[in-house]
Every structure is written in C-alpha cells, then in structure tokens.
C-alpha cells in the first residue's frame, strides 16, 4: 500500500486508517467526483455522507478474489469454477468488475437463482399447508422463471400476477391467489400488502385491511374435470360481505368504482403501479438492496411502517428514482448496486456496531443459503444429489443434474435443505429463510457420510497422483475458496503433510475437507 494513495483517500473520505489485508482487501474507498457521476457513484456518495454524519468509517474495498466470489454467490447463487477464477484474477482490465457483473446478469443461473428467491416470496410449493399441487407448482415456477429470464419489467410482472385468471396448470401466475393459506378477501389482501407493499397488514387498523380486501372480494375458484385443476376467475357474486363497495386504496384515496361488473383487481393494480406511487417502488428497491447487501435500508425488508424508518432515506429515494425512470428494469437496479463501492466493501469492519451494519459501512457475513451451499459442494466435488417428492401423488422425481437453486417445488424432500434452513414457504415472510449456524449443521459438514462421500469422490482428491503439497494446495484453494493460498497457509499445509506423512491423496482429501469447513467457504463475505 503506497502512502500516496492512502493520503488521497484520507483527504476524500472520512479517512480509513486501517492497514490493508491483501487477501481480503484492495484499496480504501474513494469517492468519485466530477460532472458525470453514475448512479453507483451517487449510491456511494449518499452512503458515505450518512456514515460521516454518524461519525462512522467505511471498510476498505474488497480484493478482486473476494469480489469475484461475492458476485458469483450473490448474483447467480453459484460458485465460480476454477478456470473462471484464474481468468478473473489474472485480468488486468481496469473495468473487469463491471464486465463480470454484466456477464453474470446474463447467465442462466441468474434466472434459476432469482426464481428461487421469488419462489420464497410467492410461496411456490406443492404440499401442505399451501397445497398448490405438483403440476401447479411447476407451472407457477415456469412463469416466474420466464419472467426473470426475460427481465420482464417489474410493474408488468406484478400486474400479471394481480389480474391473473385461468387454470392453475396452464396459467402459472394464477397460483399467486392459490398459494395462500387464507383465501378469504382479507387473507388475500394481507398477502398482497406483504408482497408488493412490504407491509404487514396485521399491524394495520382493521378498517384499512377491510378497505383493501374490497379489491379482492370477487375472486372465485372452481374445479374442472381434470384432477386437482382449479380455475381462478372473476365472479361479482363471490363478494358475500359487500366488501367491494367499500374498497379504498391504502393511501386513503377513494376508488372511482368503474362501470358495473369490472374486476377491481385491475383498478388496484393501476393505483399500485403508477410511477408516482412511492409505496410500490420503495418495497421492491429495498428488497433488492437487502438481497444483495444482506441488510435492508428498511429492515426487515418486508416491514415498512412509520416506526421502522429507512436508515438512509436519501439512498432509498435514489434507488426508487432510478428504478422508476428505467421503467422498472430489474437488471438495471442490480447493476447500479453491484457496481457501487458500497457493495464491494470488505467484510473487515472499521468499527463493529449495529449502526455500522445498518448503514452499510462494511459487507456483512452471511451464510450461504441451503440450496447454494449444496450446489457449491456438488460443483466442487463433481457429485450430485437426487431429489424427489413422494407426496402427494403423482410423485415428483427430479433429474440428477438439476441443481438445488433450480428446484421448482419448495416441498421437495431433502434433509440437507431442511437442516440448512430452506424456508417452508408458508407465509412469504423474508425471515422464513434461516441463515443461522447450528451445531447440527456443523456436525453434518464436518463428519457426515454424505459429505465424506463427496470429498472422497472429488476429482481434486482422486486425481491427486503424486503431486506436491504446494501444487495440490494451489488448485484446491482456487476451486474451494476462489483464491490462491497465502505463503503462510502453504507453510502450514506442508508442515501438516510432513508431520502426518499422509499420501498426496490423503492430503488432498484432508485439505478439501478442511477448506469446505472454513467460515470463508460457508459464509458469503
């Protein structure tokens, strides 16, 4: 680290006095100035401004290796392959990070991974208690996947969900109204509030919920001759309580009831999706921020209310503006966040306080999601899982090359996914996904036959030959931790090989196992 750069950085920002850790960090955060600030620059400006007000310091910007791994895990839920790591870490292109972000946003795994996330929010699950049924869960998943893959403008995505009619097997999006435990008008209204406003209707006055329920009081369901097929349709007679006549928008504005017989869901969608409706854009932009940054500007991201204000209101407004002016372009929103230095800060904190986390002074550690973790283990060991769901009939069998992030149905049987906190998809709450660490999880990764079997089958182990510890270590580090080993680590590995006089193969086995049990592997950092 040169003194010049340090002084330059210190003069521009509050001043980061930390010594750089070359494994995890690359440079101090530097505020860009000038006439052509990008949206990402503006994000950094607002984050730094807020940190300055709070007398907090930002962490340093992370190293290329950390960025690469974080970008892969956050954007496509997938570990980088050995070759991808080597290519990126030897690249000298100044805009290599931006280019990588663009590439990742085009990958198939992007659609898989974000469809999985939406599957949690939209509750895609065949079995109890949501009871979508396997065919319908598949159709719902397909519809989400196609939308994510085509980068469907988000307002259009929501509009299609809200006004959906038709067969649960044929029109995937109608399952939005079926994937609820409570299909009463109030139950549906509460789900809509949670999903698209990020508000918890149980904290609303009863009157407000009743008013919203009016828009969803004329939805009906009927069976067909096909087993478990269900048609969702508009039926003015379904409104037994006369709630539709009392429909009022959540902002308190009265509804211009259209000519008789019109489906009020369309009226609500029009209100919700107006560009100037701040409740809509603040929910989705804050969610995306939270998904990428590990913490919402409003946190929990599905608990917007007056008593839970944003930690940085100007930042949230900036994201909303960017989102609305690009016609709800999801990938644009991803891009501006991912290209910010804020996203690229190291996990080594300048100060460890809750305030620092709430204001994005460093990147928080987050355990890989269950699906991402098992896929990562399979990828690096070149092994597979076999997923199936024996209930309800017809049984679901999943081809073995399907990755966990691509599973359509949240009720596929898997004790690993259960153990690592896959959400039950019962309620759509973000908090359903558990990312804590338990002793049972540690036990599994340290010593289960499941994991031992994978390690033994791993080509890094089976093809170890007579390679020297240094050569083995280099490849294993790149594959498992996405970075080369340090000198210090190499010394320890050589010493271990000498003291235990293991064969190359045993050493490779021990090292693959030891690295996949590191927090550096298990945690996105």
């Amino acid at each position, binding site marked *: 680290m040169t003194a010049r750069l340090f002084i330059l950085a210190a003069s521009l920002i509050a001043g980061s006095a930390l010594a750089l850790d070359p494994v995890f960090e690359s440079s101090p955060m530097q505020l860009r100035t000038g006439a052509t600030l990008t949206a990402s620059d503006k994000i950094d400006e607002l984050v730094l401004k807020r940190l300055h007000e709070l007398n907090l310091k930002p962490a340093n910007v992370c190293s290329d290796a950390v960025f690469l791994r974080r970008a892969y895990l956050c954007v496509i839920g997938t570990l980088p392959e050995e070759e991808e790591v080597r290519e990126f870490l030897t690249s000298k292109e100044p805009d290599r990070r931006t280019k990588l972000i663009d590439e990742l946003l085009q990958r198939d795994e992007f659609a898989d991974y974000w469809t999985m996330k939406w599957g949690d929010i939209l509750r895609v699950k065949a079995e109890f208690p949501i009871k979508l049924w396997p065919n319908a869960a598949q159709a719902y998943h397909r519809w989400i996947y196609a939308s994510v893959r085509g980068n469907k403008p988000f307002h259009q995505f929501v509009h299609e969900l809200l006004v959906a009619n038709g067969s649960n097997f044929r029109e995937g999006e109608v399952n939005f109204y079926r994937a609820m435990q409570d299909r009463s008008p109030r139950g549906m209204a509460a789900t809509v509030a949670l999903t698209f406003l990020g508000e918890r209707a149980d904290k609303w006055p009863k009157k407000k919920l009743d008013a919203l329920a009016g828009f969803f009081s004329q939805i009906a369901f009927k069976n067909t001759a096909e087993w478990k097929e269900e048609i969702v349709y508009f039926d003015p007679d379904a409104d037994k309580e006369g709630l539709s006549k009392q429909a009022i928008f959540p902002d308190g504005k009265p509804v211009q009831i259209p000519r008789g017989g019109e489906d009020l869901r369309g009226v609500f969608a029009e209100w919700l999706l107006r560009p100037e409706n701040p409740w809509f854009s603040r929910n989705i932009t804050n969610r995306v921020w939270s998904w990428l940054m590990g913490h919402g500007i409003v946190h929990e991201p599905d608990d917007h209310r007056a008593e839970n204000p944003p930690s940085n209101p100007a930042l949230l407004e900036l994201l909303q503006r960017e989102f609305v002016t690009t016609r709800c372009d999801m990938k644009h929103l991803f891009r501006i966040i991912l290209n910010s230095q804020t996203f690229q800060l190291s996990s080594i904190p300048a100060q460890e306080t809750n305030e620092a986390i709430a204001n994005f002074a460093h990147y928080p550690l987050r355990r890989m999601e269950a699906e991402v973790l098992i896929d990562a283990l399979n990828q690096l060991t070149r092994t597979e899982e076999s997923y199936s769901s024996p209930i309800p009939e017809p049984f679901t069998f999943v081809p073995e090359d399907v990755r966990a992030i691509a599973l359509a149905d949240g009720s596929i049987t898997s004790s690993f996914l259960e153990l690592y906190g896959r959400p039950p998809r019962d309620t759509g709450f973000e908090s359903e996904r558990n990312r*804590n*660490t*338990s*002793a049972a999880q540690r*036990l599994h990764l340290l010593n289960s036959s499941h994991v031992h079997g994978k390690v033994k089958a791993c080509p890094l182990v089976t093809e170890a030959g007579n390679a020297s510890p240094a050569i083995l270590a280099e490849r294993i580090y790149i594959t498992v931790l996405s970075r080369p080993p340090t000198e210090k680590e190499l010394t320890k590995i050589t010493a271990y090989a000498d003291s235990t006089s293991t064969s190359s193969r045993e050493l490779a086995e021990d090292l693959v196992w030891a690295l996949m049990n590191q927090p550096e592997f298990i945690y996105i950092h």
Partner: protein
Amino acid sequence: MNASLLPLNRAQRRDLLETTSLFGGVPLTRREAMRRCVYGSAGLLLMEPFGIGAQEAAPLGKAKTVIQVWLWGGPSHIDTFDPKPEAGRDFSGALDAPIKTNVDGIQIGQLLPELAKQADKYSLIRSMTHGNNGHETAAYLVQTGRTSERDVFPSLGAVTSYFKGYDAGYKGLIPPYIVLTQPQGRFSEAGFLGPKYKPFATGGDPAASVFEVEGVIAPGISAQRQQERRAFMRGLNTLGGALPGDSTLKSVFQSEEMAYELILGDAGKLFDLSLEADATRERYGRSTFGQSCLMARRLAEKGVPYVTINYQGWDTHKQHFQTMNRKLPELDQGLAALISDLSERGLLDSTIVWCLGEFGRTPKVQTESPWNGGRHHYGKVFSALLAGGGFKGGQVVGSSNATAEEVKDRPVYPADVIGSIYQQLGIPAESKLPHPLGTLTYVVPGKEEKVPMGGLLKEIM
C-alpha cells in the same frame, strides 16, 4: 436433568441464561433467554387464568420422556388394535381370529401375540377421529392437534423440545428431540417455533453392523485423524484471523465445539448398539424397527425428552394382507419389547409411549382391481396405543361400531391425546407458545380456535 417447571430460583435462572442452544441456531442472547424465561419455556412465570384448562386441571404429571412410534402411511385399525371378527371377511379379510390379551375382555389382532402379553401396561383408544384422509394434512392434525389453516403449528415433539429442552435446563450433548431415522418432512415439524426446535434425524440404520448416526459416527476415520484434521482446519482459518471480534464467527466456533464433543466424546457410545447384550438385541428383533425401539430405550434412559420412531411402509392400498403378515410381527416384537423392557427397568412410569399413524384404513377390504384386497385411507375412525408416563394400562377408551367404520362412543380427537400427554409431562395446558405474529397461543387449543375436542383422557390418567 430437566429443570422444574415451577418458578426458577436464582441459581436456576443463572443456569438458564448461560445455557446455549446446541441444536439449532445461535446461542440464546441474554435478552432472548429472559423473554423465554418470562413468556414460555422454563419459567412459566406469567401464567394466565385459562378457561378450559382451569376446569379440567388435573395434577401435573412427572413423565420425562415421550417415545412416539409413528406408523407412517396410516396403519389399519381393524387388523391391529380394533379387530371386528363378527363383521365378516368383507371387513376382516384373512385376519378374522383376534387373540386374547392378558387383560380380561381385551382382544387385539392375531398377528400381535407379544403385545397381547403386555396389555396390562398399555391402554388402547379405539375412537380416534379427525375425518381427514390426506397424508400430509392428517399427519399434521395428529401431531399438532391443530386445524388452523392460517398458521403452521409445531408438532408435539417440537413443543416438548421447547418446554423440556435446552431452554428448560436440559443439559447434555444429545439433542432433546431425536428422530429415528428419517424425518417426515411432510410438514415442518417445528412449525412456527423455527428450526431450533426441529428434531435431529439420525439417518443410518440401527440394525446395521454399525449404526452410522449422521455426523456423529463416521467409520474409517480414527479419533486421532479426527483430532489432527481438526487442528489442521483450525490453523487455516484465515478469515477468522482477519475478523477477530466477529460475533457470527464466534457462534460458528461454538457450534463447532459442540459438534466435536459429539464426534469425539462419549455421545457416540450411546448410539453404539453393540454395547447391548445379544439377547437384548434379539428380544427387540433385528429389524430396523426393532433396533430403533432399542435405541429409543437407550435415549429414554439418558433422559432425552422426545424420541420419534418413523416406521415406514403402512400405506397399503395394495398388497395389504401380504404387508401385514410381514410388518405386524416386526411391530409386535419391537413394541412389546420396548414396553416390557422399559417396565422392567423402572422407566415406564416416566416414559410415555404412544403408537399410531396419521389415520386408519378402510375397514371394508377393497376387493376390486387394481387394489385386489387393499385398504385405503380412513380418518373417520382409527386406533392409538398409549402406555406409561402415568397413563393407566389395561384400559380401552372409546369404541367404534360393529364394522369399525364409525365412532360409537367417546370420540377422541388428536388435541385430546396431545393435551393429555402435555399434562403427564407437566406442561400446563395454558403454557404459551411464542406465536410469530404475537397472537396469544397456548399449547392446547383455546376455545376460539374451534378445534374439535372431546376432553382429556381422564379415564386413563
């Protein structure tokens, strides 16, 4: 082993605060522990007057352990605990010669001779009902007692783990809620209590030469190699070195320490069934089910609060009688050995054994193709066996009609059995569950939930 459910003294309270959770989640924070202490689990300091519970209140029991023998798929009641030979072969099929038990007036299915010798130690409920014929929903009903469509309630095992596990001063490395060997996965067993209260599923096969409890016992890796690898792994924790004060990494480290105590400590011996005499192992039967029963006895001896044996293969739409001829002797030997062995060891008074499935099966044999003598799902009437932990033996509660198709008297709903088990465990009906949305929720459904209930099983308590 389990802390008293009475208000805690100062030392107990301190213990509770220092208890970290072994299985599931990060250690309790002090504040969280206080909250539990006040609202839920160990403390029960703030009990509220409670309508139904107060009227029905019987003295709380002292049972310490529950063993749930889950006949997964739904066992036929008419072929097991509620035989109806007079209904004719359209109903009884080939199993039309029930046998006497050691209790006058009680007969059970002819393929259960060992259980017939133990009838004085258990009671039978022949009027179980909930009316649901879907596996997943019925399994949920029977194990939670709830009918709610809006929330997902925790199972009896998770609730017991909540009130009798680490939060209540349960010590020791063996998780408080264990499943032998595969989890059901049909509903989240922990419901809204969350993953911390999920069962630890052993995996492996207790009837194999080595019972490979997933994570605890890895054959082929010596203790020395485990130790060497552990030190090696720790030495390479470069991220940990860069983040010395990180609280997340601290909890990872604590979880890891606990995991290693299981791997390297004495816990592994508990799962080593070769330490049992051969005669004992034979007595239970060398089947996976039989050895699971033996394992359950060992866990009960250690004071583990809840053990579930998930016994698969009871969903007999086809090949029903062939399957019964194979499975019932296995069930008979294992379950009879479990009950008699617990009794001989003086553990039956403190251990509840309940055996049932999610529903019964159609009493009328389905003779038409493609079933060819199968039986379908039947939630309208089914049977349960209940033994130990303060429940009387040698009794029959309720009855079905002549064809075992209707409840004749004393309908017993899942919530009644579950409430009675809580009572015997010393968990008052008015104990609160921590509902995620803050809704006031008790372990036994309140009137406002409109859950069908016929009352606690006072006949056998």
